[in-house]
């Protein structure tokens, strides 16, 4: 489409110079509404615009449990948080500085979740003040007073009224008016903003695009005149290209970039959206998504595809992992390359399907009966969601081993810009080998040191063998001699030691000795490192270590731990609180990584963990450090 916006441009520059602006180096905005009011689209656009301007950004969606929750309800809060900064932003942060609310009720859920602090600016739709229903009217005014009591700065805004000047149905469009409002408040580049709108509505007709542009400008102008909040967030525009996406989208891109051709799945929150991102494009990239009848069939199908050709991937979440357990044992036993992505959610059982937890580590590590060695990788950023898929595929192929990649609900929906990867053909799996094998080929000709053996793929002459889950020898013949099972088990286990050999001693964030070392894995990285930096700025002797390989573990951890007075893991999963009645050293149940590291290193590793189902903010961690170290770290609010 083409449209003339020369006049627009002048207009922009005209406006965007008038006001005085306070320079801040970050801002956290939330847009909260009933579902279906487009709050998320508004926030994602704000994030993209900011990223284009060279700001660091992290956005995370606020998702209600139901498809269409009751309007104006606490549980129905739907929306998004956008954290923008002059530097790199790696997590959602703590309290919102500014909140746009399309009704008052949806804020109560956020308040329960400690999303706001005294001083938080709340810009709220004022139409409820004179609603026909007395009940709503009073709900509204009571809420406003309540918010003020809580110390929030409340500004009532005639959003509906203003939008109706431009569109007939304010529900469709209010979000772009709000975007304009925010663009003014945070000094976003209107040219970039309008391009963003054109991109978002690219499939709609020009009229719609034009009216949304009008709304943008109207909101912008209204803020200019009526609002006293004007900030500037300095940014350094890097010459690199960037992409902005959420973790699940990055995983789906990574799968394609790895040259994986079969993604076999069964829908489950929060993993499914990764396949949605893929479904449209994967076929043109030479791959296909198979939606199986259940998780067992999904992994069975992936295993069949891997066995017969290129390493396949299956993607799921906790309940699905449980169902895949038996097949994972088979993959480990018969050494079938396979990638399993686990986008973790709150457990146990159905638990908190849309919320974050790091609760699957031990179940993937030990899930299957007997000794079933597997590789476990943990993703700690959106960017890694992309690159680890390529690594996982290579590991699976080279070592003939199932490789788990652990993500979680926080990464799945978190959005962050990262350096645009340049697709590299070396990332792709090689073509399916169909060359004849030597007459004396053995399907499990285990290398005595590494346990690695060369697999044969149907179609290869002399490669014929019967793969089996029964104990078997080098020829895959069923083992009747007891010595065989011991030997085969040793060889399968050696592969993990061999992989560890290829790993470097992990880097530490901060000094490599001190009072306290925090150890984390997965999506908590940004929050932990930010907290550690803030604590160190205040003179605390604390460092952090973030693990990406969980099986095998990264090397020389004990050596690292020895240099700290105290070591503790920070995780989002359950652990007993030593304070609790009946909980003793004899029975305390530790967080999952802590448990695992204690066994491997015998270091007395403590843990800080909880199952609130929310991403850990740096502030929470800082508060914990304050108690542990007895130093003042958090400024009271």
């Amino acid at each position, binding site marked *: 489409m083409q449209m003339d916006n020369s006049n627009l441009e002048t207009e922009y520059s005209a406006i965007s110079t008038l006001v005085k602006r306070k320079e801040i180096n970050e801002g956290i905005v939330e847009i909260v509404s009933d579902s279906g009011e487009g709050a998320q689209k508004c926030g994602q656009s704000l994030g993209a615009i900011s990223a284009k301007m060279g700001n660091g950004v992290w956005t995370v969606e606020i998702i209600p449990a139901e498809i269409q929750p009751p309007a104006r309800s606490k549980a129905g809060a739907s929306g998004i948080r956008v954290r923008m900064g002059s530097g790199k932003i790696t997590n959602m942060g703590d309290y919102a500085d500014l909140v746009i609310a399309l009704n008052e009720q949806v804020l109560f859920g956020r308040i329960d979740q400690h999303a706001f602090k005294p001083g938080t600016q709340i810009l709220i739709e004022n139409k409820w003040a004179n609603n026909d229903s007395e009940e709503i009217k009073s709900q509204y005014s009571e809420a406003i007073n309540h918010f003020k009591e809580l110390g929030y700065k409340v500004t009532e805004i005639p959003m509906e009224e203003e939008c109706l000047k431009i569109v007939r149905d304010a529900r469709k469009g209010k979000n772009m008016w709000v975007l304009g409002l925010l663009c003014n408040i945070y000094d976003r580049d209107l040219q970039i903003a309008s391009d963003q709108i054109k991109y978002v509505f690219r499939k709609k007709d020009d009229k719609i695009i034009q009216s949304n542009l009008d709304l943008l400008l109207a909101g912008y102008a209204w803020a200019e005149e009526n609002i006293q909040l004007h900030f500037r967030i300095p940014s350094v525009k890097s010459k690199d290209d960037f992409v902005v996406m959420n973790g699940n989208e990055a995983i789906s891109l990574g799968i394609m970039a790895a040259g994986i051709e079969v993604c076999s799945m069964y829908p489950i929150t929060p993993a499914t959206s990764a396949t949605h991102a893929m479904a449209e494009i994967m076929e043109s990239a030479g791959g296909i998504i198979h939606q199986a009848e259940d998780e067992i069939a999904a992994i069975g199908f992936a295993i069949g595809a891997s066995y017969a050709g290129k390493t396949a991937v299956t993607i799921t979440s906790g309940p699905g992992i449980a169902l895949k357990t038996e097949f994972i044992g088979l993959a480990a036993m018969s050494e079938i390359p396979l990638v399993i992505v686990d986008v973790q959610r709150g457990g146990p059982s159905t638990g908190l399907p849309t919320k974050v937890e790091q609760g699957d580590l031990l179940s993937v590590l030990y899930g299957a009966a007997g000794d079933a060695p597997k590789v476990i990788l943990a993703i700690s950023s959106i960017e890694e969601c992309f690159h680890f898929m390529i690594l996982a595929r290579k590991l699976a192929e080279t070592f003939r081993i199932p490789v788990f990649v652990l993500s979680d609900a926080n990464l799945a929906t978190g959005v962050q810009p990262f350096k645009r990867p340049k697709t590299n053909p070396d990332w792709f799996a090689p073509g399916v080998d169909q060359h004849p094998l030597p007459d004396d080929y053995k399907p499990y000709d285990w290398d005595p040191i590494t346990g690695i053996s060369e697999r044969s793929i149907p179609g290869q002459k002399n490669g*014929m063998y019967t793969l089996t889950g029964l104990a078997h020898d080098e020829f895959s013949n069923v083992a009747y001699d007891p010595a065989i099972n011991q030997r085969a088990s040793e060889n399968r286990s050696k592969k993990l030691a061999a992989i560890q050999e290829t790993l470097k001693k992990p880097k530490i964030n901060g000094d490599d000795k001190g009072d306290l070392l925090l150890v984390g894995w997965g999506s908590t990285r940004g929050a932990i490192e930010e907290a550690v930096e803030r604590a160190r700025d205040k003179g605390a002797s604390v460092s952090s270590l973030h693990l990406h390989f969980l099986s095998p573990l990264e090397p020389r951890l004990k050596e690292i731990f020895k240099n700290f007075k105290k070591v503790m893991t920070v995780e989002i999963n359950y652990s007993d609180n030593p304070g609790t009645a009946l909980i003793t050293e004899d029975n305390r149940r530790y967080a999952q990584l802590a448990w695992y590291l204690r066994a491997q290193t015998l270091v007395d590793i403590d843990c800080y963990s909880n199952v609130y189902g929310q991403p850990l903010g740096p502030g929470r961690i800082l508060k914990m450090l304050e108690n542990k170290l007895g130093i003042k770290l958090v400024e009271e609010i």
Partner: protein
Amino acid sequence: MIAIKPDFCDIDTSILEYNLEDYASSKARWCSGCGGHTILHNVQKLCKEEQLAPEKTVFVSGIGCSSRFPHYMKTYGFHGLHGRAFPVASGIKFRRPDLHVFVITGDGDCCSIGAGHWVHAIRYNMNMVALLFDNSVYGLTKKQTSPTSPLGTVTNTHPRGSVLPPINPIQATLGLPNVSFVAQSCDWKPAHLYATLQKAYHHPGLSFVRIVQRCPVFMRDVYEPILKDPEAITLLDHEDGILLEEKSKKSFRHIIDHDPSDLIKAREIAEIVKETTPIGLFYQNRTANKYDEYGAHNLGISTENRIEAIENLMDRFAV
């Protein structure tokens, strides 16, 4: 199953002469008199007649006496998990149209723990041959009731006799969507069994063949009456069905003419199992959707196109 050469990998296409021995691996470890032996022999014969390259042929099974089958073939084999042969076979076939894939399953493996996959495998209708070795019992685990055990069968889990009527695998399959080939035979009628295997092999789509199989160790009482009484078997006959030589037809007292294109009729005939055991082709439809065609439609795209597609997607997220 018609083998298609995929364009994404180079294959040595020189034609060889394969003999029976080229398909026979270690001696089958089934009991003497087990129906498995005759089935194995006829499958090997089929491979030879059709000159299937052993390295292009994959037998996929679950767990059970019957599922030991792949170990006795000198082809590729996948002796997987109990009840899960179908998903694995589907995954194998999905991107490898050039492979001849056979599924070997038992009545417990297919109709009990594997029932969900069975339902969906019929619906996927991928170009494979599925052989249900139905001995009406759990053999490997030593005589427990199977979903196809006749009502009242005395087993180790039902010493007072089983309490539910058996699943009729033919009828159940005929009720499923996209069903394209349903036949029945038995291990002690080799001519018919072989003809059935051939018909199944040449069918484009999933050929579901239930083979009534003898388990002399545990289930003598179930098949012996059928074996002894010439009335007990009814031959389904039709020019589009399983073709037998006249002389072997002679051995059947009951012959019904049945047009395998008639699904409604097929279901009607499938009901007669209470009185007799019908063998032959119940239903065939060559034109049903094949999920493996969908799986293969974008095989072997060039590295360039692959990169381009990824970069296009990447553009959407560019800032």
